[in-house]
């Protein structure tokens, strides 16, 4: 075998599969003039998003499956706004035929999950700022035993019984324990530095507020160990004060 033959057998390509995130323009009304205006407005919001962006045109949501749509004009319109049509999603025979003329592949209708994509963050609705939603506190009346974990998501945690060693209390807000606190208590775990821990008897394995913590070894040296206290954060120092 000559050198040339060997070279000839060397593969010149590889086939690969890949998942790409692609923008889909789903047309719901056959009104190209309005599309032109609305696209222009979008482009203004985020010009970078609309420069040579690959696009799939989805036409199956159009009334009458998009019969009578001028595909040539639609593709040209998209091109004008920086969107380059890669393929078509359609089920109407005329459109499929038209796609053939433009040499555009036709994709099967999608059953997959799609989320709506907004090129620019919507300008915040100028209306009144929304009231902070009130999340109810989580109230536990039975003892929390070692190995149990209780999380009050988005609010306060109130425990009306003893918290055993090895138990873990978590809250996005404050933690109140009306009994001995012998386990771990982590308040403001999403980073709220104003969260506090209140307890009738401080005997905790660990207390933490917004990530600043003290373990039992340090807590035991506190003069308030075993007493009713509140624990708050100032700067990054946990302050323990008598209740």
């Amino acid at each position, binding site marked *: 075998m000559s050198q040339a033959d060997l070279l000839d057998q060397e593969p010149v390509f590889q086939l690969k599969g890949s998942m790409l995130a692609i923008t889909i323009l789903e047309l719901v009304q056959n009104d190209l003039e309005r599309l032109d205006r609305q696209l222009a407005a979008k482009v203004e919001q985020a010009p970078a998003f609309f420069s040579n962006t690959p696009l799939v045109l989805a036409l199956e949501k159009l009334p009458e499956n998009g019969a009578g749509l001028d595909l040539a004009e639609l593709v040209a319109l998209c091109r004008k706004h920086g969107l380059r049509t890669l393929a078509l999603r359609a089920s109407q025979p005329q459109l499929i035929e038209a796609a053939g003329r433009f040499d555009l592949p036709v994709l099967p209708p999608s059953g997959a999950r799609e989320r709506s994509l907004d090129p620019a963050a919507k300008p915040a609705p100028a209306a009144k700022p929304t009231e902070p939603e009130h999340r109810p506190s989580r109230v536990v009346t039975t003892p929390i*035993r070692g*190995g149990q974990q209780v999380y009050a998501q988005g609010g306060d945690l109130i425990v009306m019984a003893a918290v055993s060693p090895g138990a873990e209390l978590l809250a996005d807000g404050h933690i109140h324990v009306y009994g001995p606190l012998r386990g771990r208590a982590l308040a403001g775990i999403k980073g709220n530095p104003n969260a506090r821990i209140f307890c009738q008897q401080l005997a905790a394995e660990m207390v933490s507020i917004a990530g600043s913590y003290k373990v039992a070894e340090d807590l035991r040296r506190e003069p308030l160990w075993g007493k009713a206290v509140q624990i708050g954060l100032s700067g990054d120092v946990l302050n323990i004060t008598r209740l």
Partner: protein
Amino acid sequence: MAKILVVTSGKGGVGKTTTSAAIGTGLALRGHKTAIVDFDVGLRNLDLIMGCERRVVYDFINVINGDATLTQALIKDKRLENLYVLAASQTRDKDALNIEGVEKVINELKENFEYVICDSPAGIEKGAHLAMYFADEAIVVTNPEVSSVRDSDRMLGLLASKSRRAENGEEPIKEHLLLTRYNPERVTKGEMLGVEDVEEILSIRLLGVIPESQAVLKASNQGIPVILDEQSDAGQAYSDAVDRLLGKEIAHRFLDVKKPGFLQRLFGGRE
């Protein structure tokens, strides 16, 4: 309606089987038809403590697998009319237990008995879980030392969250604390946790305090439940616990250091 009682602890060696045997025998002594079921598959002990090890033919696993009927597997106690034992299998392990099988056996026992005592294995795994899953009441056996108390606490958490009653949102399992191997002298010296300490940490109702006693070991080795030794302090303490379990109000005994009597002090005699 039959009551399912689980005797559990988390930690091993605290006296679960001794307690199961004593409480079961105590209930039978008071005229209640009682079955004691050994859930400690692979480490079968209950039959030894009950003194029926030579009469085990079929076991719990045989009944679950349908190799034997419950009537064939139940061993009747030679001393008491109302007392039966269902032995664990010694040749299998806990994986031989399954929830459907246990439920079937428990339901069948419920039809024929007033009390079913489930003697749980140590740990919090499958055997212990299945022993407590169908329970109405739980006796948590604890020694007055920190590791035992911590394990009991963990077990109480599981009773409150992983039992059938908890899963179905029914009334929770009624929990009783039984403190065993209690030595008032060592408590006074500060070497052992006191009753109040344990009660405070676990915050459940105290069913009884069983003093550390020579009688327990002797009874185990002879295969006689210690409650039948009416002379012993441990036997009397178990008797009180059974009465409390049945709803009687009885003051706790054996909590204080015994003061040596006049003659004992004089001659330095030992009990």
